[in-house]
């Protein structure tokens, strides 16, 4: 009899546990601005919908891991609720009124918007535009400051690529070390949120590939890791917007005929996977402008 009760209790408990589970669960990690533990409670409460969605926000990284029922809602729907609670995030900026209502300790630093020059209707063209111009400048400074720190990462990547083009395993190894240092120096919470999100996604792989390239002088092993390194770097540069135009290039023969990509500052092809063997094999597949 006792065991039956116990069994019943277990069944009951497990069913209640099942009920609070989210079906068709999908988890994504995205940047959500915030400051403190109080923010965490508010953010998670805003994201929480019984059996549909929940979030776990990390005060250190400012990243929220959001789990949701992909058949019943979307990541954006959850992020919208978080923004309506006052917290800027990857997809939405909170209404000013909602941000203003946050308690003092929760008032995180907001990214400034880049004020646009309003196209004046034809009859108003005589009005001076200087005011708008200066506004725009402030905004520009603001955004470039925060992406600046990635420029070092990109530049070391390009140096590494050049070493591979020259089939120089020693230099490649040294440049990979520089790359590791540059990656570790990035203050990720200063990144704009969309960049931050991608950064979090690729960070571990970037580090791992750089480590491997650094740890060997075998050029073919270095080139193997350069393939995934380039892929991740491309994702990053696409959101971070490079200081100057960058070309995403592709060699169909690399990687045993499966093809591989790399990034370059020049439009002309200099293949890092074959070096002098087949220096000009490949083509530009995408031009990434600032």
């Amino acid at each position: 009899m006792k065991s039956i009760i116990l069994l019943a209790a277990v069944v009951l408990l497990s069913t209640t546990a099942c009920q609070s589970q989210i079906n068709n669960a999908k988890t994504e990690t995205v940047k959500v601005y915030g400051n403190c533990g109080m923010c965490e409670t508010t953010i998670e409460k805003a994201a929480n919908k019984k059996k549909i969605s929940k979030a776990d926000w990390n005060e250190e990284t400012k990243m929220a891991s959001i789990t949701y029922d992909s058949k019943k809602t979307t990541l954006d729907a959850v992020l919208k609720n978080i923004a309506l609670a006052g917290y800027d995030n990857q997809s939405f900026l909170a209404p000013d009124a909602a941000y203003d209502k946050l308690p003092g300790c929760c008032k995180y630093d907001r990214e400034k918007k880049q004020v646009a020059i309003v196209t004046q209707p034809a009859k108003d063209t005589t009005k001076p535009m200087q005011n708008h111009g200066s506004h725009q400048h402030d905004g520009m400074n603001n955004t470039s400051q925060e992406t600046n720190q990635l420029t070092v990462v990109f530049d070391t990547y390009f140096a590494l690529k050049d070493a591979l083009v020259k089939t120089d395993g020693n230099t490649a190894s040294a440049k990979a070390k520089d790359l590791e240092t540059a990656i570790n120096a990035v203050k990720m919470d200063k990144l704009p949120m969309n960049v931050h999100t991608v950064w979090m996604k690729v960070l571990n792989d970037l580090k791992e590939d750089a480590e491997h390239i650094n740890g060997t002088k075998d050029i073919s092993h270095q080139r193997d890791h350069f393939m995934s390194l380039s892929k991740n770097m491309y994702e990053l540069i696409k959101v971070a917007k490079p200081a100057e135009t960058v070309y995403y290039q592709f060699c169909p023969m690399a990687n045993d005929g499966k093809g591989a990509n790399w990034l370059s500052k020049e439009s002309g092809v200099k293949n890092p996977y074959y070096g002098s063997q087949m220096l000009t094999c490949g083509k530009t597949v995408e031009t990434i402008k600032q």
Partner: protein
Amino acid sequence: MAIQKTLCKKVLPLAILFTLLISNLFAQKIVRYDLYVKDTIINFTGKAKRAIAVNGQIPMPTLTFTEGDTAEIYVHNEMNEETSLHWHGLFLPNKEDGVPNLTQMPIKPHTTHIYRFPIIQNGTHWYHSHSGLQEQIGMYGNFVMLKKTNDPTFRKGIDDLPTVPILLSEWTNIKPENIHRMLHNANDYPALKKNAVQSYGEAIKVGHFKTKLKNEWKRMLAMDVSDVYYDKILMNGKPSTDLTRIEGKQLKGGDKVRLRISNGGASSYFWLTYAGGKITVVANDGNDVEPVEVDRLIIAVSETYDVVVTIPAENTAFEFLATTEDRTNSASYYIGNGIKQLVSPQPRLKYFEGMKMMNDMMKMNGDLDDMGMNMSLNQMDMNVVMYPEITGDAKPKQDDKDPNRYNANALADIVTLNYAMLRSPINTALPKDAPVKELKFTLTGNMNRYVWSLDNKVVSEADKILIKKGENIRIVIYNNSMMRHPMHLHGHDFRLLNGQGDNAPLKNIVDIMPMETDTLEFNANVEGDWFFHCHILYHMMSGMGRVFTYENQAANPLIPNPKLAQRKLFADDRKMHFMSQNDFATNGNDGEMMLQNTRWSIGSEWRLGYHDMHGYETETHIGRYLGKMQWLMPFVGFDWRYRKMGIDEQEKNLFGQTNTKDNRAVLSLGVNYTLPMLVRFQTEIFTDGIVRLQLMREDIPVTKRLRFAFMVNTDKEYMAGLNYIFNRNFSLRTHYDSDMGFGAGLTFSY
């Protein structure tokens, strides 16, 4: 002969040349659209539901013309039911107006009907089905008429902006026929869904018990600013849209965008707000107005507004939000590219403040009292007492003397559009020498029974209104009902007299709030039968309208049998609405069934025990509601009961009359009267001389889901019960009945 021949030779080519020339000079461009109307299944909410799609889409396709074109629209009805299409706000020959049984016969299933008319105006309009409730389930579409580029009224910086037509609409998973039926039976399930029941319990919690008491004393049921619950709000068929490019051109910071917004909702008003700053209103109901900057505006059912918004920053999309007037639901357009800047949602309504305001306005006889405020043109909005963004979150400080206490623009620093701010850029004055005919209408209604009318008459109870071609018609409308009504005139634009003199704006809908009086005028310039009606679909179908008709006008070739057409037109508001419920309880079955329309009620109640001791009893009443408020209903009845002496032996009534309950079948005459507190008082005299007086009320809202019911009569019968509402159809009921004792059970209502 020879001469003739040469003449022919010479003249014929010339004639051909001439005709060509003429057709080039004068013939308008014919723009043809083919619309295939078809049943479809749609899934907006996770549940597949029936809808109507045209050319496979909801909303119907956007139809675009340029002033001067000729429209040729082929409507292919591929459904198994009748349909029609009305071109809302258009000037056209009456037979193209698309009102079934008035300007044409309905388009029969699996036939094609051609609408053909010249486009003689420009502006933002829309089109919709005028048949039954089809408009609710998908039959609405944008209808845009562009200005010619050489039009003298062409406005640089407005008419040349990148432009998007946006059609607002709502979706409900409940069949519209069912919604209509539930509205007529005062079913409070929609209020429950919207958390707007306003029960005694909720009233006490916020310190408004007296308000609720006074409200019921004045015989009002709790009301909301709107009475249908919708599952989704749609802008061009979607709850959320990213507007990143227009006509292939990417939007960027600094761009201005013109939105041509039509409210194709069947019963919802929408607040329009924008995250990127001010909204510039540039046209209303398809007519240009002088640009006016506001923070927000409300768009009435079937109105159109053209607004211009600016994208104020780079790499950002700004939310353009449409929120239902009851603030329970919304839809968004994100204008621009990049991260999405949200706009503050409209805060929830303070319902009990609204109830208190209504109490103050309502006289004991059901008339409204504006307390000398002469309200008009949406300038004084009584609803501001419910708006936290205007009157604050807490209870407002009561200042009955303040003349601005309902003036949103005086109370808050945000600017809300009202009709007085609309000014036409052109002189709209009517011909000065034309005779003037003045008409007065009072908008009347009864929320509890969902009867809506003009001068307490529905369409089928009133004659057509005769007007003469060339006359200036001036209409003064006063709203003595508790809801706002968007009154729409077919085939003409009217001037809304709003203090702008010769530059009064041209409109074809005027939204009139409770207690407002508005004056409008138009020149009667096109013959035909023109509908003038409230555009809330369920009000229109309940008969809230009139027909204007011109004296001595030619017969409409599309109405071969006017008598039949009229009978079919009148059938809409004569429709009987069915409701029934039954309580399957431990001590028996308790239930009722009712068929009701504007004036008549046929109802049957029953109490069926499970054995002879408990008895079996039915009462059937056929009655007619009298008066504007419909508090009084005389009826004839038939009672039958059978019982073996049971638990509560009451052979004599309060008047000492002996009443055999064992077996009785009698006719009766009686009268129902709704007392303050919404208690129904019934007096009935039966053919066997017995008199019975009875008091009852079944729907006292104790909490959001709990209802209390009681009944007591002079036969010394009594009942008290509690109902807990689960959903639209089911509730748990427990009651004590003097005949059948204590019982508990499940109630099914339809």
